[in-house]
């Protein structure tokens, strides 16, 4: 009997269709057929909401996990377990949650040091990548020379290799004691130093930056570079004083992508240090420190993850201005 019921409804729906009396959804569909823009708009909002939910929900979940008191970690729901607004009336501002976890993040381990390490590694890598890729981008984008295409292809090929393929030889290399490095590095090896991450990251993220900057630099009119050179710069001076500032959106894009990629990198970051804050271990190592032998502090890990994301989130918001603005607009009278 229960299986018959849906069939019946379908039948009645079919019967009702010719009638003018439409439900709200049918009325909307009829209007959308008259005016397709309504349908596109609806699709746009559906897609936007879908992406917002799928990207932001994990953050919400992290936040809820972080606020859950340590004793209730087995029972995490859409609100922190133990969350009770009625506690507010009793003077408990936390309402049964555990905001103190944010302090725990820094007291249990020196998480700020891990953040500092990540920040320094990402910043140094970004600077190296932008400077070197600018030189390469200038050459590929603005000069004509034999062998330009094959060379560009070679750069491209570097980015084809999976980074993991480089790991074993690099790890071997970085664990080798090199005598000439002894004055700057205690044991003469790069293991447990930021160089062990900055060097491979620079190489891995360089091709993308070169491509972005080549495209941008090639679009700066020759006249501006000529003018700068006549006015008193060298070619290099023209690159840094005129071409780069005018390619600010491209430089920002390449820089932000590199920074985020390095900041979020896991593989090399995890393996090129022993995980101790004093040995330049980045954020991922720090988060894994909350994993003890008998207990995993998921709430602290979640809080640390959120704190770790903040610098990048701020960076993107700030850099967005640069990325969006087209500074070259109105540069030349065409």
């Amino acid at each position, binding site marked *: 009997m229960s299986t018959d019921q849906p069939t019946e409804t379908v039948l009645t729906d079919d019967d009702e269709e010719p009638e003018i009396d439409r439900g709200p959804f049918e009325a909307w569909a009829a209007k959308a057929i008259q005016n397709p823009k309504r349908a596109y708009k609806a699709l746009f909002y559906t897609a936007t909401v879908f992406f917002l939910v799928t990207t932001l929900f994990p953050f919400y979940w992290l936040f809820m996990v972080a606020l859950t008191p340590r004793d209730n970690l087995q029972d995490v729901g859409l609100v922190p377990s133990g969350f009770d607004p009625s506690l507010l009336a009793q003077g408990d501002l936390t309402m049964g949650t555990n905001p103190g976890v944010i302090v725990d993040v820094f007291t249990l381990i020196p998480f700020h040091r891990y953040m500092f390490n990540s920040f320094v590694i990402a910043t140094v890598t970004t600077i190296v990548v932008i400077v070197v890729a600018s030189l390469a981008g200038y050459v590929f984008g603005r000069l004509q020379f034999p062998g330009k295409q094959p060379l560009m292809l070679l750069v491209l090929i570097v980015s084809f290799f999976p980074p993991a393929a480089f790991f074993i030889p690099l790890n071997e290399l970085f664990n080798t004691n090199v005598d000439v490095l002894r004055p700057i590095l205690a044991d003469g090896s790069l293991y447990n130093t930021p160089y062990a991450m900055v060097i491979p990251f620079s190489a891995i993220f360089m091709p993308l930056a070169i491509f972005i900057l080549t495209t941008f630099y090639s679009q700066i009119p020759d006249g501006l570079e*000529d*003018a700068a*050179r006549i006015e*008193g710069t060298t070619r290099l001076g023209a690159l840094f004083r005129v071409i780069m500032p005018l390619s600010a959106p491209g430089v920002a894009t390449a820089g932000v992508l590199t920074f985020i990629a390095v900041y979020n990198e896991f593989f090399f970051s995890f393996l090129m240090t022993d995980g101790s804050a004093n040995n330049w271990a980045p954020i991922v190592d720090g988060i894994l420190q909350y994993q003890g032998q008998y207990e995993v502090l998921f709430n602290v890990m979640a809080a640390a993850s959120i704190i770790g994301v903040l610098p990048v989130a701020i960076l993107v918001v700030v850099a967005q201005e640069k990325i969006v603005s087209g500074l070259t607009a*109105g540069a030349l*009278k065409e």
Partner: protein
Amino acid sequence: MGNVTLEHITKRYDDVTAVDDMNLDIRDGEFVTFVGPSGCGKSTTMETIAGLTKPTEGTINISGRDVTDLPPKDRGISMVFQNIALFPHMDVFDNISFGLRLRDYDDEEIQRRVDHAAEVVQLEDMQDRMPEEMSGGQRQRVAIARAIVRNPDVFLMDEPLANLDAKLRVHMRTELQRLHKELDTTIIYVTHDQAEAMTMSDRIAVIDSGQLQQIDPPLVCYNEPANKFVAGFIGSPSMNFVDGEVTADGFESEHISVEFDPATAGVSVGSQVTLGIRPEDVYEVGKVSTVEDPTAEIDARTDVLEPMGNEVFIYLLLSEDAEASMDSTQSDDQLLMSTDPDTTLGENDTINVVLDRSKVHLFDAISGEAIAHGLADPTDASTAETGVSSSD
């Protein structure tokens, strides 16, 4: 100071020779204009002087120094570009002071010089504007201020007015002349607009196919062109050219004959020549009171009239079956004349015209070299002006 010498400058790209053995000697304080059609090598020549392009061969001297291997910044030059090329991320003050700041002038000196340069180009109150907030003419004046602020020995100007509208261009033309008078600095000016070249320069260098055709004061280029290219390029509309042969009596072609004495004109009988006559030296018979030395009458039929206001251009067909071609001044059976605006002629009228014999040019039909400027009536040989005047 400020003199520029090019010796045997040649610039070759892979398979193209852009500049071919260019020799130039530009004096201090002179306003020299490079003119020529697109792609003739005038801009490349200027780029080699600026140092933006290195010549394949030859040497460049500026102010007595060999600068062939020096970078642009060390040559004592400044340049104004066709596309203006202001730095869009800097305001007017920063644009003008860019070169000074690079050379570590102190702030007061920079401010003083920028103020002066801005005053010269009449942009005193705009120093904190951004280029995008300015009109084309204002931008170009900023570019000129940027060029003069460093007190260079030589100004290079690469079609600086080409992107301005017609009215502004005429205005800026006089501004530039005023500037030249004020600064008394060598200016090398590239243009394809021969009106600019005629009005502004002390000397015009006519360039074609990478080769210097003639360098002379504007009126010499106009009245005594060194060859057929210069004759056709300078003057608008272009000079009429008619191919023919030299006979014992003078020039002979299908429709036009001009009597002169080949010996006095320095041309041998039987040689193939091209006769050149400017439109304003063609006169309608009956209105020839001003022509002292007219040639034999030529029968013609009017084709198209172009009233310009101050004059009328009339396209003449010299034979019944002549067809109007695109380039009427190059055709043997067509002539272009200019006449007073009050002419009563209409289209398809039959008229007789004469040429002013003293304004007739003869060119070698093959090499295009000028043979004679101005012919004389063989019966009155005393006024003959013959031979090509030397072009240096």
